[in-house]
Structures are given as structure tokens and as C-alpha cells.
């Protein structure tokens, strides 16, 4: 790849194609559509953390005027795949309510108020069961087990039943490494479960016809995945279920599965009418999302010069009421930033009576990296070494055998660290009660399956259909790559997100994959269209197709024909397409797999009020290798948004459960995401070390930014308050308790 390539469109900052609709209130999100004769649905949820459902009497609700359908788990059939069955049983409890907020029944009625009244008429008899919500408690031999016999074969025999998955990554001999260290520090950390916190609650509109065909409109990160799951649950052919992705009001991983869509479809089928189902915010917190909470032991050895001799992480993740495998992402990420001779990361996935976890931006990585980076910071301080120097000394580079196996290709961690060290922020003076923190972070990024279809219109414009919901400006970056490849202005491209019936399968918008994977498919679709246009030009000129070449948006004759004909532009070829063989299009279906890992470094200054423990974030700078920033503004936006979600995780966000196993803060009032007045500007420094696996050098950039803030803020708070904390969030009562304990 020519890294010096000069781009015309990439790296500029055009207005996004869907922008005007979004600033005028016209864009249609999940809850913004209405159908003729539509019913409103509501879901009845368990008030218990763990309870056997002895009986459900829906007769009074069914008898209420205006109620058109009431469903329970009895209205769902059997499904073959274990994964889909779990998803179905998460959408509607099957005999046992597994967490506070677990759905037990649903109604569809002619109005919201009738639906609400009907819910109150459903009589559920529960027999409460012992519950467990804490990961360490859930791993005890006497803990109530959520599902018997669901342990993965990786789990060592005799391990308590809630442990459903075990993994072990690394290389070398960690004991030998610790023996060789000048200093070994071993710490235990805890991090709370956090919610993705998208502002748009889950919402859908389902319409099942009497002929078995169905339409589903929903807010999702992946409508093909919704189709896959819902078709299986509903016993339908995928071709018969058309899913349209609405504009999506945030997801961050939390909209990569279904929570309400099968319920709306089942209600619609039973009622014979369109059914709209929208979660309340309280339901969003109680029954969708969150990420895992964690309990972690980290042991790291270091020499006095800062060289890490060995690292060992033991990660215990709590992921809610169903089996899952996500701790592996944490175990693989924990030490990925470092080039280590001796390294080991073990992980245990554990079930508890909490909502089923789902991905949250770099799922599994932030907490593991928080714990590891905190110990590395402590060791650096122990030897009075500069924390960035220590990280540069040990940093992963091109050729490093990663802690999880593969050898890294070109990566930009050292460049990011050096940029941080050279930045004015790093040497700016600190005031009283202020402290500075630094942390690295890592994320794998993903390629996955993708389909793109592109039509060259007769007027020289281009329609592009892709299958990945635009969650943060990807229509712009995709249009820009198409414009770059075709050599035409950005404004000539119109990119839309097709429904499941109008373009081929595309994996979910996750893994920071869209600009990478859809980008590659777009480039390849454009190449196909260009090849066709070369044929048309050759035909027009009556020369061989090998004797033409595409240069800068036009076909030129080459070789001995060079200069013989004036070049034909895309617009000219398109205008003539009806006479040269018909419409011109390009498409690409594939599964690009060279996504290119991404590293970031965050610098933060905080001030802690020594009398109240209140933390103010004073200054924040993000450095991240993004390969190539297609639309720098949206790349910066990802870096800023990820940083602020991480700040929230570090300082105030947490799922709080009572002794009764019920969630105590199911709302934005007490689930405290950062507000505008909590924050300074979030400065960004884009580092571009091109990904050799993408024609333009793109790496995913969306997720890495949430990984470093936890440890960076942690280190800054500890420095400002003069204490060490090992638990997130670092809420004021915890900071004050640490300050008081020190006195």
C-alpha cells in the first residue's frame, strides 16, 4: 500500500448526508413510526430477583375492553439453538424469573392507557427462590445456581455451577518471571456493572400478516441479526421477515441483540394487527444492556529499570442470568499493550440474578485493562519512574507476540505514547489537590460479513446501499470512500441503509467494523463499477478493454491508443450507459478479516475535594492510532465519546442492588452518566499508522477510547487524593473513606 497516497476526499470534513433530518427533528428513530390500526404493547416484569412462576392468570386482562392480545412464554414455541433459546427466554421468562425486571407477560391494546390498565389485571403467583447478584458470592459452592448443567467444557470439573466458561491465555513461565523481578505487586480490584446508557430506549413496530409474512421496524445495531433471531423464534423463513433498521439513538453494543422484538411479533401475530412496543427508561435499565461487573486479581513483577518481568491476571466476570462467554475478551486484552516474556490471563464467566449482559463498547476490556494499568502505574511510582517511559519501555510494537497469541503487524502504540509524552498537557503544572493519570488501552476490532450494492445513475450520481445501521456518521465515511475511489465529488453519492430484503447479509454494527468492513466492500463495489465503465469506454472507442485505464474519475485510453480519444468521465459513461449495454452497477459481498488492532493513550488531570471526595475532571487528552481518519470530526467524536463513557464508569456509574436483589437505580437520576457541566473539553490527537489490511489504512476507532479512561482517571484521582483505590466507581463516599482511613 502506498502510505504517501494523496487523498482528495478522505481526511476532509463534509456534512453528513443524514444531518439535516437529524437537526430538524425529521429523522425517524425506533419510536417515531406509526401504523394504521396500530396497537400499543406493554410488558409485565418480575419484581423478584429469582422466583418460580407458579401460575399466570391473564383472564381479567384479556376481558378488559380494548385489549387485543395477552402473551406469556406459553405463546412461544421451541427453538433448536441454545443461544437463541436463551435470547427468547431472556425476552420472556420461561417458568422462572431470573432477575428483577425479567419479562413474564405482555399485552397489546388499543391505547397506552388500556395497555397499562391491563398489566395490572394480570395475576402472577411467584414462589421466591434464593438469589445471588455478586460475582464472588455466585462462585461459592453454596450459591443458588441459575441454570443446571450449562457449564462449557472449558470449566474445570467441580467448579460451582454458576461458572459457565473458563479461559487461559498467555505464554512463558510467570512464576519464573515473578522470581526474577525486583518488585512484585499483587492487587485485587472490583468494578461495577455499567449500562451502555443510550438515550433512545429500545423500540419497535411489528406487523405480522395472516399469510405469515411480517415486517419489523426497530432500533438496532444489526437488522440481519434481528431477522435471524426473530425468524427462528417465530418459526418463520428469513425471507418472510423483512426487518428495517430505524435511525438508531445510540447503542454502544447494547442494541446487538433483541429484547422486545420477539414479544412485539408474537403479540402482532396473536392480535392480527400492527403492534408498537417501546421500553420505558426503567425497563431499559432493569431488562436490557448492562455490561459485566468484575472482581480481579492482578500480579505484576517489574525491575527497577521499569522492565516488566511477568504479569498474571485472574478475571472473574458477572454477566447476568444466562450463560455467556465474554471474559475471554478481557483476558485477551488485559496485557495486549505490552511485549512480555511471561504472561498469563485467566478468566471465569459467572451467572447471577441480574439482567443478561450484552456488549458495551470494547466488551470485557475496560475493566481488565483498568486493573493491569493501575498496578503498572503503582509499580512505576514505586521505582520513581515516569509512567509513560515505563509504558514505552514495555510497549507492544510491530512484531511483538501478543499476550493472546497473534503477532502484531504495524501498530501505533509507541507513537501514541510518544505523542502523549511530548504534548503540553503532560508537562503542564498541577494545582493543589490535583493529580494526573495516564493509561494505555487496546481493542481488537473486527471485520465480518458485509454486502454493498452501488448503482451508477445516468446523471453521474451514485446510489449506494449497505446493511449496517449508521450509529455515528458512517453514511458520511462510506460516501467519502466511494467518492475517493470513484473520483467524483462527495455530494454525488447517496448512501442508504437497506432493509433485509434489499441488500445482502451484513453483520451487526459492532467491533468498530463499519468504516473498515463496509469501506472495503464499498471500495470493491466501486472497483467493479469502474471495471464495467472501462469496458463501456473501450466499447465506445472500439478498442480493447486492456487498452484503457481508470484515472481520477475518468477512463483514458492507454498504450498506443494514448491520447487518441478524449477521456470519458464517469458522468459521460453513465449518460451513455443505455446505449452501451444498460445500467452500470457494482456490488461486493465478503468477509474482510484484517481489521487491524487499535491502541490509545489517555491523559487526565483531576482535582479531588479533600473534604467531600468530589472529583472534577480538569483536563483530558486522548491519543489514538486510528490508521487513517476518513472523516476526522467523527473520529474525534468517537475518541471523545468513549473517553466520557469511561469517565462515567470510573467516577459514578454503577448498577446498585439491594439485599433483596432488586435494582435500586433504574433511571437517569441515580444511574449517573456524565452531564455537560461535569466535563472539560476533551482534546484529541489522531495518530495515523496505516492498517496494512485496508486499502486506505483504516483501523476501527470506536471502541478503543473507552478502555484507557478507567485507569487514567483512577491514577489521577489517587494522585490528587493521596490514596490508593481498587474499586470502581470511585464515588465520593469511597474516596472519603480512603482519605479518612489514611488519617
Amino acid at each position, binding site marked *: 500500500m502506498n502510505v504517501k497516497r494523496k487523498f482528495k476526499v478522505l481526511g476532509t*470534513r463534509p*456534512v*453528513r448526508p*443524514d*444531518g*439535516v433530518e*437529524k*437537526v*430538524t*427533528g*425529521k*429523522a*425517524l*428513530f425506533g*419510536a*417515531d413510526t*406509526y401504523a394504521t390500526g396500530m396497537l400499543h404493547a406493554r410488558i409485565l416484569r418480575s419484581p423478584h430477583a429469582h422466583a418460580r412462576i407458579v401460575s399466570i392468570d391473564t383472564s381479567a386482562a384479556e376481558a378488559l375492553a380494548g385489549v387485543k392480545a395477552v402473551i406469556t412464554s406459553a405463546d412461544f414455541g421451541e427453538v433448536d439453538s441454545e443461544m437463541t433459546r436463551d435470547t427468547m427466554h431472556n425476552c420472556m421468562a420461561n417458568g422462572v424469573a431470573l432477575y428483577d425486571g425479567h419479562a413474564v407477560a405482555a399485552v397489546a391494546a388499543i*391505547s*397506552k*392507557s388500556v395497555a397499562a390498565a391491563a398489566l395490572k389485571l394480570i395475576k402472577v403467583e411467584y414462589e421466591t427462590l434464593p438469589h445471588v447478584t455478586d460475582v464472588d458470592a455466585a462462585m461459592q459452592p453454596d450459591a443458588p445456581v441459575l441454570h443446571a448443567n450449562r457449564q462449557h467444557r472449558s470449566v474445570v470439573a467441580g467448579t460451582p455451577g454458576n461458572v459457565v466458561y473458563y479461559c487461559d491465555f498467555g505464554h512463558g513461565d510467570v512464576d519464573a518471571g515473578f522470581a526474577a523481578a525486583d518488585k512484585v505487586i499483587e492487587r485485587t480490584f472490583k468494578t461495577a456493572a455499567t449500562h*451502555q*446508557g*443510550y*438515550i*433512545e*430506549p429500545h423500540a419497535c413496530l411489528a406487523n405480522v400478516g395472516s399469510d405469515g409474512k411480517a415486517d419489523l421496524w426497530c432500533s438496532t445495531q444489526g437488522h440481519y441479526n434481528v431477522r435471524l433471531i426473530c425468524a427462528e423464534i417465530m418459526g418463520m423463513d428469513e425471507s418472510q421477515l423483512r426487518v428495517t433498521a430505524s*435511525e*438508531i*439513538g*445510540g*447503542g*454502544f453494543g447494547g442494541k446487538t441483540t433483541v429484547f422486545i422484538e420477539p414479544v412485539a411479533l408474537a403479540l402482532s401475530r396473536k392480535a392480527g394487527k400492527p403492534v408498537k412496543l*417501546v421500553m420505558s*427508561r426503567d425497563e431499559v435499565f432493569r431488562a436490557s444492556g448492562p455490561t459485566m461487573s468484575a472482581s480481579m486479581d492482578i500480579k505484576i513483577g517489574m525491575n527497577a529499570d521499569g522492565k516488566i518481568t511477568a504479569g498474571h491476571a485472574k478475571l472473574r466476570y458477572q454477566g447476568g442470568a444466562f450463560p455467556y462467554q465474554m471474559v475471554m475478551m478481557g483476558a485477551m486484552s488485559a496485557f495486549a499493550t505490552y511485549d512480555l516474556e511471561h504472561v498469563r490471563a485467566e478468566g471465569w464467566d459467572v451467572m447471577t440474578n441480574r439482567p443478561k449482559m450484552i456488549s458495551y463498547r470494547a466488551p470485557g476490556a475496560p475493566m481488565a485493562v483498568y486493573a493491569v494499568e493501575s498496578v503498572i502505574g503503582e509499580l512505576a511510582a514505586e521505582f520513581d519512574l515516569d509512567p509513560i517511559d515505563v509504558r514505552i519501555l514495555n510497549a507492544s510494537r510491530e512484531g511483538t507476540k501478543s499476550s493472546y497469541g497473534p503477532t502484531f503487524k504495524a501498530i501505533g502504540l509507541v507513537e501514541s505514547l510518544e505523542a502523549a509524552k511530548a504534548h503540553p498537557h503532560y508537562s503542564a503544572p498541577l494545582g493543589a489537590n490535583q493529580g494526573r493519570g495516564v493509561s494505555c488501552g487496546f481493542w481488537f476490532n473486527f471485520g465480518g460479513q458485509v454486502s454493498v450494492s452501488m448503482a451508477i445513475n445516468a446523471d453521474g450520481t451514485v446510489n449506494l446501499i449497505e446493511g449496517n445501521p449508521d*450509529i*455515528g*456518521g458512517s453514511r458520511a465515511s462510506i460516501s467519502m470512500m466511494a467518492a475517493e475511489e470513484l473520483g467524483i465529488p462527495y455530494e454525488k453519492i447517496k448512501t442508504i441503509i437497506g432493509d433485509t430484503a434489499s441488500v445482502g447479509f451484513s453483520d451487526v454494527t459492532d467491533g468498530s467494523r463499519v468504516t473498515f468492513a463496509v469501506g472495503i466492500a464499498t471500495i470493491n463495489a466501486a472497483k467493479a463499477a469502474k471495471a464495467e465503465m472501462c469496458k463501456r469506454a473501450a466499447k465506445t472507442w472500439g478498442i480493447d478493454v486492456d487498452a484503457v485505464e481508470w484515472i481520477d474519475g475518468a477512463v483514458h485510453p492507454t498504450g498506443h491508443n494514448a491520447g487518441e480519444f478524449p477521456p470519458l468521465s464517469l458522468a459521460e459513461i453513465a449518460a451513455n450507459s443505455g446505449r452501451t449495454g444498460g445500467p452500470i452497477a457494482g456490488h461486493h459481498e465478503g468477509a474482510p478479516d484484517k481489521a487491524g488492532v487499535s491502541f490509545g493513550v489517555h491523559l487526565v488531570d483531576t482535582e479531588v475535594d479533600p473534604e467531600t471526595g468530589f472529583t472534577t475532571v480538569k483536563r483530558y487528552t486522548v491519543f489514538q492510532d486510528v490508521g487513517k481518519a476518513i*472523516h476526522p*470530526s*467523527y473520529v*474525534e*467524536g*468517537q475518541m*471523545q*465519546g468513549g*473517553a*466520557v*463513557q469511561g469517565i462515567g464508569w470510573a467516577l459514578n456509574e454503577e448498577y446498585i442492588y439491594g439485599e433483596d436483589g432488586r435494582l435500586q437505580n433504574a*433511571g*437517569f*437520576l441515580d444511574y449517573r*452518566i*456524565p*452531564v*455537560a*457541566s*461535569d*466535563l472539560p*473539553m*476533551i482534546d484529541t490527537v489522531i495518530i495515523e499508522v496505516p492498517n496494512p489490511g485496508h486499502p486506505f489504512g483504516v483501523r476501527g476507532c470506536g471502541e478503543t477510547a473507552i478502555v484507557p479512561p478507567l485507569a487514567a482517571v483512577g491514577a489521577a484521582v489517587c494522585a490528587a487524593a493521596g490514596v490508593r483505590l481498587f474499586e470502581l466507581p470511585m464515588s465520593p463516599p469511597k474516596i472519603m473513606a480512603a482519605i479518612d482511613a489514611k488519617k
Partner: protein
Amino acid sequence: MSKIHVSTEINGDQVEFLCETDETLLDVLRDQLGLTGAKEGCGTGDCGACSVTVDGRLVCSCLVLGAEVEGSAVTTIEGMADGDALHPLQRHLLEGAALQCGICTPGVLVAAKALLDKNPDPSEEELRYWLAGNLCRCTGYDKIIRSVMTAAAEMRGEKS
């Protein structure tokens, strides 16, 4: 239960509607009047996505009953642009990439306009506190704050 008849003005137009007693202004705007620009992010006044003004005062429309706006003047995001011409705030949020998913954007715009109507030259801190009730989970607020400040400067006639 009989519904309540309400006459009001919305974005300069005289409007009449019937609502249930417990129906919020937000529900009326969205479900009856086709004005879905105001969003329900929480329904409890904690997110600001449903921001509108009633008689010039910025409110969460989820905390106002439909029945309460009898005789009032309501403005929503749908009334902000002048035909095809975007309001400077809309244009600057768009040009400044101040929206990622866009769900909070209508509320942010309505709230920011209410501030600039009252104080054309807010400090960054004033703006941040004014918008504290408009949650955004995507942007970290940086580009929102910058874009509103740029729009305010333009509206004051300062060169950018």
C-alpha cells in the same frame, strides 16, 4: 373517561386536540400531532430529549400534561428552521459534527436556542450548566459546546 379538549398554538399554528387526563404534552405532540422531533428518553425529566418551550419557557414536555397547554404557545424543534433555511444553531451543530446518533439533538437545539434568546453571549460554563439537563451519551459534549458557542458568535454578528 372523557377526553379533554385543548386549543393551543404550536410553532405558530392554531391547533386543537383531545387528550386523556394523564397524557403528557410529549405524548400529544408525538402520538396525535405527528411532531416526533421531541423524543422520550426517560419520561421523568432527567434527559432533556423532549425539550420544548411553553410560552417561551424551556420545559421537558414529558413533565407537562397535554391539558395544561390550553391557550399557550408551544414551540418544538419542528419550528426552528425557517423553511429550508436552517437556524444557525442547526447549521453549526451539523457542520461541527456535534451529533453522532442524533437522538439528543432536537432537545439540545431547543434548549440552546432558549439560552441564546435570553443570553446571546454565554460563557462556556454557563452553557454547560444550562445544558446539564440534556444528556448526550455519544459525543462527550465537546463538539456540542463548541458548535453552540460558534453559532452564538455568528448570531452576535462576530466573525468566526
